[in-house]
């Protein structure tokens, strides 16, 4: 873990990033798109190392909503990885999922959520669930490490089985917030 980074990544001992990767394989996810978040760093590495997964790094998260629409048109299952601030960038684009009834699973690591240090993360972090739900997204939260895999599994299933946008919010309580000595 980079002591100079402001974002926290999961500890090496945490099993959940690898469990999410296993779920992507189980659900035959072929395309993964993302704007990086430290909380997803190990999962991103695993996806990049997998020749059967096409990883697309986006300039903004809304591109990922559009990419998922295109992937589904061509028969690929895909997911979007992002941090909670990226949800704000997706709002209007989420209408694509409703227009076309396109499955759009999103795995969101929360910032500005539980013990946040950075004031800039709080407005969007606090609004993430409301914004997603306002756009008709099914939202399921996980606030313990054991709950992450079942939540991600449920969200991927609900997106593809019911043709909707669905988001798993991975709480900051799991990943932890940096305090920079201001304990």
């Amino acid at each position, binding site marked *: 873990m980079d002591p100079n980074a402001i974002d926290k990544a999961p500890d090496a001992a945490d099993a959940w990033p690898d469990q999410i990767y296993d779920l992507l394989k189980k659900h035959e996810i072929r395309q993964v798109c993302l704007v990086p978040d430290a909380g997803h760093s190990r999962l991103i590495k695993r996806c990049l190392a997998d020749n059967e997964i096409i990883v*697309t790094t986006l300039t903004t998260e809304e591109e990922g909503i559009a990419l998922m629409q295109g992937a589904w048109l*061509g028969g690929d299952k895909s997911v979007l990885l992002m941090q909670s601030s990226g949800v704000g960038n997706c709002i*209007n684009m989420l209408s694509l999922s409703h227009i076309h009834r396109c499955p759009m699973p999103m795995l969101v690591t929360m910032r500005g959520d539980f013990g946040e240090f950075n004031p800039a993360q709080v407005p969007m972090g606090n609004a993430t669930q409301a914004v997603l739900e306002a756009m008709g997204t099914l939202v399921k939260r996980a606030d313990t490490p054991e709950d992450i895999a079942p939540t991600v599994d449920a969200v991927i299933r609900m997106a593809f089985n019911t043709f909707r946008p669905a988001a798993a919010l991975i709480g900051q309580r799991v990943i932890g917030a940096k305090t920079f000595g201001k304990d």
Partner: protein
Amino acid sequence: MLAESGKLDRRELTRALLADRGDLAVIAGLGAPCWDITAVGDHKLNLPLWGGMGAAAMIGLGLAQAQPTRPVLVLTGDGEMLMGIGALATIAVKKPKNLAIVVQDNEHYGETGMQETATKYGVDLVAMAKGAGFKHTMFVTKPEEVPALRAAIHAGDGPFFAVAKIDAGSKKLVLPPRDGAAIQHRMREAILGDAAYHQL
């Protein structure tokens, strides 16, 4: 193919680009490009967008990556392309050989009452695509350049990006089907066959 202004007629351009289209899949940016692709012949492999301004190029990327042997054309307006301009960087990095983007540049937001876009003031979308790393680009203003543009769409050495300067006049409204689920399903069926309805 020229309008009275001496610029390309958007509908005749579209007709020429989609002639003998084979298995070409077409994503059209919202508004006039959708009316254009429908006017020259609605098709199962057409996805006219009713919303999602800025999405067209990225939908093209997702589809091109899922179906790497099928040619994919994104036909969109200058306003729509500008809204999703970051996609040029995303696409240039992924280098999909089968993806072509053609911007019908009338230098205006036609759909909303002909307000001027940035291209009217010299913003050069081809230069932006080149800067992003697109190796194959075209800037088209004349009818005699259109056959080469059509050929580039099918050539399979993309990603390919072109701007065609078009007459700003609006054309007869020819509406595509409005049920987005239906237009998604018909394209999936055309590409995937019956599996489109049984994908788990």
